[in-house]
């Protein structure tokens, strides 16, 4: 029985978390949930931090599942996601994008993974006004972070039976920074001869991605390119409402999350779509090695969507969240009964 820290989040967070818990019960997943709240508090010394009991739970369980968090404007503290990222040194953002059969988009057969460096790059937050009207923003690339993300990308590819890793860069323009990133990727590739390594310019990737996404497998890249490309790929399969996401940290911590917003307008109305959080939970199960349970839940979820009888509003139907969830539970139990 493994413990998982559950952070329901805000808005529709609690109801989609409840949906996931229900489906996990139906699938008899050996997981114990520990619910925690991560609303920022001011610690000693005046620095914002997450509540100590949340941190302690996470450090102990090492695995977390998180719903959408809101950052109130003028709250005084940085975004909650940023705070979590800094607290657990979540250096890799992983988004597998697989076309969902039954949720039609113009793109079919998408099956790729974007791995984005999440701690530095263009999002270092270091900006200065040089003189009035001239601003510089610093993009930071370090050897350590580039090596770490490259290693993670190749290990992920190996553990998940993926064939190739493509480094996305713009080293023709940013010779030193992206050049360093590229060099580290090449060095790490030497230790993973079983995985094919290619390099591609960011613009070429974008061009080819919208024409033929099937040519891509695992993509590894610095922060900004990762941000744009991972959202581009999410758009290919249907948007943030159906895209899972995982954040891997140093010290073995991994937090899986839904990346959509808190949708305050439909919160509490049983209209939310729990697919994104559910698929992130499935990703979590794979990370924990519970593949049979993961496959079962994913099959049930995709079958439900393909069947089109119980679809939430954003997927084109008019079922309630609870009906959608119950249908998935029923299918999971059917799959169990079939063994």
């Amino acid at each position, binding site marked *: 029985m493994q413990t998982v820290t559950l952070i329901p989040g805000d808005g529709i967070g609690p109801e989609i978390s409840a949906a996931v818990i229900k489906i996990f019960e139906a699938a008899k997943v050996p997981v114990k949930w520990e619910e925690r709240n991560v609303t920022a508090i001011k610690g000693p010394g005046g620095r914002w931090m997450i509540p100590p009991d949340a941190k302690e739970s996470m450090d102990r369980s090492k695995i977390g599942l998180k719903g959408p968090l809101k950052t109130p404007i003028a709250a005084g503290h940085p975004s909650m996601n940023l705070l979590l990222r800094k607290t657990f040194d979540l250096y890799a953002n992983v988004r597998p994008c697989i076309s969902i059969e039954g949720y039609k988009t*113009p793109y079919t057969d998408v099956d790729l993974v974007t791995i984005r460096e999440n701690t530095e790059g263009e999002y270092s937050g270091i900006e200065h006004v040089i003189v009035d009207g001239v601003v510089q923003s610093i993009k930071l690339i370090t050897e350590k972070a580039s090596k770490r993300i490259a290693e993670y990308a190749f290990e992920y590819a190996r553990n998940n039976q993926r064939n190739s890793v493509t480094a996305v860069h713009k080293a023709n323009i940013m010779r030193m920074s992206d050049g360093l990133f590229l060099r580290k990727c090449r060095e790490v590739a030497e230790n993973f001869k079983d995985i094919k390594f290619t390099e591609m310019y960011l613009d070429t990737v974008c061009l080819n991605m919208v024409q033929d996404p099937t040519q891509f497998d695992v993509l590894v890249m610095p922060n*900004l390119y990762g941000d744009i490309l991972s959202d581009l790929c999410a758009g290919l399969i249907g948007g943030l409402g159906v895209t899972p996401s995982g954040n891997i940290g140093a010290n073995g911590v991994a937090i899986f999350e839904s990346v959509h917003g808190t949708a305050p307008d439909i919160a509490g109305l049983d209209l939310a779509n729990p697919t994104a959080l559910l698929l992130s939970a499935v990703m979590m199960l794979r990370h924990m090695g519970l593949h049979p349970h993961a496959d079962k839940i994913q099959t049930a979820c995709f079958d439900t969507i393909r069947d089109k009888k119980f679809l939430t509003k954003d997927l084109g139907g008019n079922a309630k969240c609870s009906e959608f969830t119950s249908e998935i539970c029923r299918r999971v139990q059917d799959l169990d009964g079939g063994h």
Partner: protein
Amino acid sequence: MTARFLPGSLRRLFCSWSSRLPPAQYGGRHTVTLIPGDGIGPELAQHVQDMFRICCVPVDFEVIDIDSTKASEVDINNAIIAIKRNRVALKGNIETNHDSPPSYKSRNCLLRTALDLYANVMHCQSLPGVRTRHENINITIIRENTEGEYSSLEHESVPGVVECLKIITRTKSLRIADYAFRTARENGRGRVTAVHKANIMKLSDGLFLECCKEVASGYPEITFDTMIVDNTAMQLVSRPQQFEVMVMPNLYGNVVSNVCAGLVGGPGLVPGANYGKEYAVFEMGTRNTGKDIAKHDTANPTAMLLASCLLLDHLRLHHYASTIRRAVLSTVTETQMLTPDLGGHSSTSEVVQCIMNAVQNPTKHLKDRYCAVSCDSRPDYISPNENKHITSANP
């Protein structure tokens, strides 16, 4: 007589008058710099020259070859001088070896910054007869072309830690925003979207946004909205029809223009234009070298030929521009003559021959509604406001 020595108001009038007339030399024939570049560039440049010969276009090309393997910048400086002399150029992409040392700057970037070609304009329009996943796309992308992430200012402060500077200035942001709104107004587009990441890069993209908002207030008939770049990428692949004119800094422009080109059929179809106050350089929109297909006679000549039509429009040789454009578009949309990138089996030469035949026997029913944008979006008049932005000090 140089404009500098005239009093202010007369200078503005003279500048706008002199830059409205294209520079013509020697009996009404224009000299245009042609930089074939690398990869598929040379073969496409040859096709353009052949096409112009067939159509008796009064343009003479001054061909400047650039050896991208040489570390010396003599070649590119010669090209810059030639373009300053002729004021107009057509170019292929010059390859940058990304394993070369940082002292080797991208030749394309050097050209753009030396000539201050501040606006990169790409008009992506769905073409009938070209099968794509999305239809009815009509987006004009206006990308700041000289600063932002492409400033090439990098240093290794500590071994293993590299800093790369992204520069955003008020002057250039105002300039590109004004260009975008003017283009929208001249082409009857009702919406301008600024693409940014100001939630993270609060100062730099924040400044860019602020400048766009300032300019927007002078164009009340045009709807102005903003969108974060990652959301933009998502919206482009799900509902690209919502966008009309998009304006953004350099790197996002790179991403968005490639996404849009992919959406309408690929790099072989979309031409691009780089405009500055005094010079204009035309090229394929997505700036590909096409190294893998070089010399195979399989490259799609459409983008380069359409770029040459933009060039002709810039020189006010509209009749020649329309003739060639009509022929190119009728070949792409109506015949089965397609190069491999569009799913066909024809060679570049076969397609070009087909276009030449179409020039000589024009189809009457194809309306010349495509690409009306580029004709009028040259910054060839200088409004008093523009003068104010550009003459302010640019550190």
